[in-house]
């Protein structure tokens, strides 16, 4: 088990990053920090998917006169590009909502917001 984890260290790092993000979402009180945590989780997932497509000694999947196999898999890269755009969109919307919350309630601390109800 430990040997397998050591061999797949490139996949273990995203798991650690994912847990850091989850910790921030649960433990932090500030809404902006919570969304930073969400962004860290997203980055963890993206780096995991990208790491899946990597080949030892591989090149970027760009054909041309001097392109030489092996190539990294293009599908994870295309998927992650889509994912990043969606992540940016959710972040933008989340920040807009936070600004609105701040304007209405005067605070973005989760516990103070809960007390207000």
């Amino acid at each position, binding site marked *: 088990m430990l040997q397998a984890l050591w061999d*797949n*260290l490139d996949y273990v790092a995203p798991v650690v990053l994912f847990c850091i993000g989850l910790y921030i979402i649960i433990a932090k009180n500030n809404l902006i920090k919570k969304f930073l945590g969400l962004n860290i989780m997203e980055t963890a997932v993206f780096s995991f998917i990208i790491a*899946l*497509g990597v080949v030892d000694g591989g090149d970027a999947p760009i054909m041309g006169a001097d392109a030489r196999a092996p190539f990294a898999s*293009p599908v994870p890269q295309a998927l992650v590009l*889509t994912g990043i755009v969606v992540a940016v969109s959710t972040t933008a919307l989340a920040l807009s909502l936070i600004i609105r919350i701040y304007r209405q309630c005067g605070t973005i601390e989760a516990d103070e917001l809960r007390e207000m109800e």
Partner: protein
Amino acid sequence: MKKAFVAALLIITAIPLLIGVAALPPHGETTAPVHTHISARYLMRGAEEAGADNIVTGVLLNYRGLDTAGEVTVIFTALVAGLAVLITRRKEPGAKADSAARGDVPAPPPVSPVVSFVVQLLAPFIALFAVYVILNGHVTPGGGFQGGAILGALFIALTIVLGEGRTRSLMPRLALPWMQGAALISFVVVGVLGAGLTGYFLGFPAEASLHLVRELMMLVLEAGIGLGGAAIFATLFLQMEAE
């Protein structure tokens, strides 16, 4: 109490993930499933089938073009939703006087002259790089989204350094909606053109003689995505900054 709960939750999350990760095929080997199915075909024939040397661009714009069209819709929806959330006050006839009356808003902190000088010095080169990334996306790393992000970041940096008044003129009021929708519009235009040429929405002609048409369609898509992305980032930033 809360700390123990959080720690327990993190451990409960991490253990299944680690077990799953340990069972994956070793990192970096070409025999892994991710390299054997469609990836292999894309790499073998993608350059000629999709018409882009950069296979990632080929996958994004040709094989999965509809998916990218949906993605462009997502950013546009984020812009619409963001503006809907941010703009609360209805514009009344006296709105101009109102904004003038808000002169008591504290001025933003001054920007360091070094930062200001460097940003203004580098701005044309950053813009050139962004255009290069957008228009060369089908043969080199890059593409519309990346170039659009660079362009949007440049606009944000300039706004911070020069102030909103001078960068607003980069986005004229009449052209702004068209710039924000540029990505969607380019997808519709190219999609309909593809439908006329091949019978499928967003279909790219496969004949070798139409190679130039195919390349032109990709360029229009990339330029639309780049311009639209940059305009959307810039608008959202300006709207957030105005608060």
